[in-house]
């Protein structure tokens, strides 16, 4: 077994659990001492740090949800002093304000360490040229993968996303061997390459890739591997955990969640009860070593299963299976998380449109498209056609600003969109994997 960190990756299960218990205990004591939020929550739940006498006792702790981040915007949940923070990333929130994640130096190191283990487990290292085609900047994908790839000593080519023809050219000219991006962008790149007369399989040195930030399937993996002549690995994470952080190993039998960094539970979203290994439920994670924003029993909203036995690769840490959907109405558009509530929130701030809207998600070629149909208010509707163009552009601009993803807007007459009694169905998703 080629390991980045053999002592940790191959640690016997019992020892790993003891380590997890020590880390959890330390974490709970620390946040109880230093954070008003955690102290209040634990008191409400009637649990004290002393009550954590075993790893199972973590289940006594209260859950955390995305709304806790929103309610404490921007930094109310941070548990490290401000002068120790070295980075902020920002991702979509459920309404107007984004989710803000802070990092200490050690947080960044652990994030890179986690990816270095994953990348190495798939045979990536010195001598590889790694094209990072995730977006750089506030989105965690670009910088996260960048630091991990740098740690294993690969040559990092930070292309970020976009300008696809140039990306294909660089892939070919610079002898790129590995890539990270969303699976749909990879497919788009493959199609653009073919239009340019370049076969990624035959004309480039690409041999492996890490694909995530949106759900994909085994069928898609098979298609990608065969078509592009590469090994395709799943990579998982959300900004609340740090960013993309965990990957499959060369066995491709689930994503290894490093137990010294994260404690995984699968919870029944209806009853909040912990589910046994193998059963599908909501992924819930406690970040055991994060200093700035630990997230204890955080309900991520992704549905999956947990596999606890050792992997054929020899690594002992638990694995999660493919993502099976969401417990909420979150959409993933070109790798960006979008909540319908964000759309609603943004529209409410624009007086010329009414409160009724509909979202239609589709796939054009390999790339997701999002159309928002909006009813114009009665007053605005009676005005001239030129004004409607201005309103359309304003709505597009504001939605783009709030969601960080390009959106097409269609203005419709007042009263034309369906009304719902009970639970409204505002989203039509026509994509299939």
């Amino acid at each position, binding site marked *: 077994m080629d390991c980045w960190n053999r002592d940790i990756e191959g640690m016997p299960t019992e020892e790993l659990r003891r380590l997890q218990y020590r880390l959890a205990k330390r974490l709970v004591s620390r946040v109880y001492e230093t954070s008003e939020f955690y102290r209040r929550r634990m008191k409400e739940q009637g649990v004290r740090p002393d009550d954590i006498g075993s790893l199972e006792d973590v289940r006594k702790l209260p859950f955390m949800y995305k709304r806790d981040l929103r309610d404490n*915007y*921007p*930094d109310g949940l941070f548990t490290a002093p*401000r*002068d*120790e*923070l*070295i*980075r*902020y*990333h*920002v991702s979509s929130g459920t309404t107007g*304000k*984004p989710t*803000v994640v*802070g990092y200490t*130096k050690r947080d*960044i190191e652990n994030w890179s360490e986690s990816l270095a283990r994953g990348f190495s487990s798939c045979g990536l290292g*010195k*001598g590889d*040229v790694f094209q990072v085609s995730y977006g*750089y*900047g*506030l989105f965690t994908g*670009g*910088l996260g993968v*960048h630091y991990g790839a*740098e740690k294993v*000593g*690969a*040559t*990092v*080519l*930070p*292309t*970020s996303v976009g*300008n696809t*023809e*140039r990306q294909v050219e*660089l892939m070919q*000219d*610079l002898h790129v061997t590995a890539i990270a991006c969303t699976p749909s962008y990879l497919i788009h790149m493959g199609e653009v390459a073919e239009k340019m007369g370049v076969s990624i399989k035959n004309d480039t040195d690409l041999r492996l890739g890490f694909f995530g930030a949106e759900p994909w399937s085994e069928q898609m993996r098979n298609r990608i591997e065969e078509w592009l002549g590469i090994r395709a690995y799943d990579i998982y994470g959300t900004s609340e955990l740090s960013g993309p952080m965990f990957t499959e190993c060369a066995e491709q039998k689930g994503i290894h969640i490093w137990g010294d960094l994260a404690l995984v539970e699968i919870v029944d979203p209806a009853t909040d009860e912990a589910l046994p290994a193998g059963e599908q439920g909501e992924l819930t994670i406690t970040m055991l070593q994060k200093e700035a924003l630990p997230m204890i029993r955080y309900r991520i909203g992704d549905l999956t299963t947990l596999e606890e036995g050792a992997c054929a690769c020899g690594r002992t840490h638990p694995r999660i299976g493919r993502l099976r959907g969401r417990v909420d109405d979150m959409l993933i558009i070109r790798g960006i998380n979008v909540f319908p509530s964000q759309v609603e929130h943004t529209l409410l701030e624009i007086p010329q449109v009414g409160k009724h809207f509909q979202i239609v998600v589709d796939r054009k070629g390999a790339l997701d498209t999002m159309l928002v149909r909006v009813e114009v208010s009665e007053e605005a509707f009676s005005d001239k056609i030129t004004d409607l163009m201005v309103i359309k552009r304003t709505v597009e601009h504001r939605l*783009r*600003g709030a969601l*960080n993803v390009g959106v097409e807007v269609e203005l419709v007459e007042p009263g034309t969109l369906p009304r719902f009694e009970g639970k409204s169905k505002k989203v039509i998703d026509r994509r299939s994997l």
Partner: protein
Amino acid sequence: METIRPDELADLQLKRLKWTIHQAQNVGLYRRKFKEAGISPDDIRTLDDVEKLPFTSKKELQAGYPFGLFAVPMREIVRVHTTSGTTGKPTVVGYTRQDLENWSELIARNMTMIGLGEDDIFQNAVNYGLFTGGLGFHYGAEKIGATVVPSATGNTRRQIEMIEDFGVTAIHCTPSYALHLAEVAESMGKTLDTLKIGIFGAEPWSESMRAELERRLGVKAFDSYGLSEMYGPGVAFECPEHNGLHLWHDCYLAEIIDPKTGERLAPGERGELVITPLVKEALPLVRYRTGDVTRLMDDECTCGRGQKIARLTGRSDDMLVIRGINVFPSQIEHVLRALPEVGEQFMVYIDRVNHLDEMTIEVEMSKAGFSGELQDLTRMQKKIANELHNTLGLRTAVRLVEPGSLPRFEGKAKRVIDRRGIL
């Protein structure tokens, strides 16, 4: 290192110059060039002996595309950036781990020099990715322990909200984007009170622009200079005296030459900046002609740091800087020549609209390609704009015109009309 004694500095420079020449021997181009010039590394005994060495041009760097000028094996290269070339292919620069260390160290020096530290929240509002400005400052700011907000460019309202909500104290962007930011902030009724420092670079800007930015954003504005071939930003930087940029002489050996004759100019004279890096491992460019016009300043700085260069005022070649991106007219020509539907003639117009640069390219259709059908023209226009975007990394407006309608030039063609005025 910042206030090293002049004699000690000279010793260090000479030692490091010899090392760079030695490192350059790993590159085929330099073995050949040194041989042609009849010079061996042993001939470099004093700093002035650098004049015996041949220059390196951007063309030569490009001819080595992609990795021909790397002086270390690929296994040692941990990063690759690209920057504009003068034709269709970009210029590729590489970094070893030590190079990344050196680069961050230089930016850390600059940021510390203007009073930034671990209590600061630094919004890095330039492009990340292949452009060196984003990751360069990101690593430097991380090194001094500041909190980095990697906002990159675009979404100006969100940028302003973050400045306000996070209490951002320092921002890095192009001066023109800063002006745009100020305007949007004013329209939103935001005063951005926490912002103290603005670092502006990647395009030339004037003292009157400084006054305007300092007034409207309420910051102290600092000029930053660098080029990807010398890592990226960080080569020279203003100190709080705001009178010239300190060049880091322990890492870069600077000369000013007459761009026409290649002769070295006397101190104080204005000419082209030529740099020999002293610590670069992956890409040791000997006497690299930057194309930037400046002068070495004689006045000692009250801050005690070393010799400065004057603010950059122009280019010795025809390179343009559009929204912080370097563009060579020859790149545009290269793209257009490859398209059969396009004729020989083109014109480039550069304007500033709402403080942001806009480039418009007028292209004559070839007689064969000119069908007159609106649909064909629209498709053609899109294709040209797309090809230009791929090569330049920049969106341009393309206007198609009839064959024979653009000006013809006898002698030197003047295809670029820059209507921006001084920033």
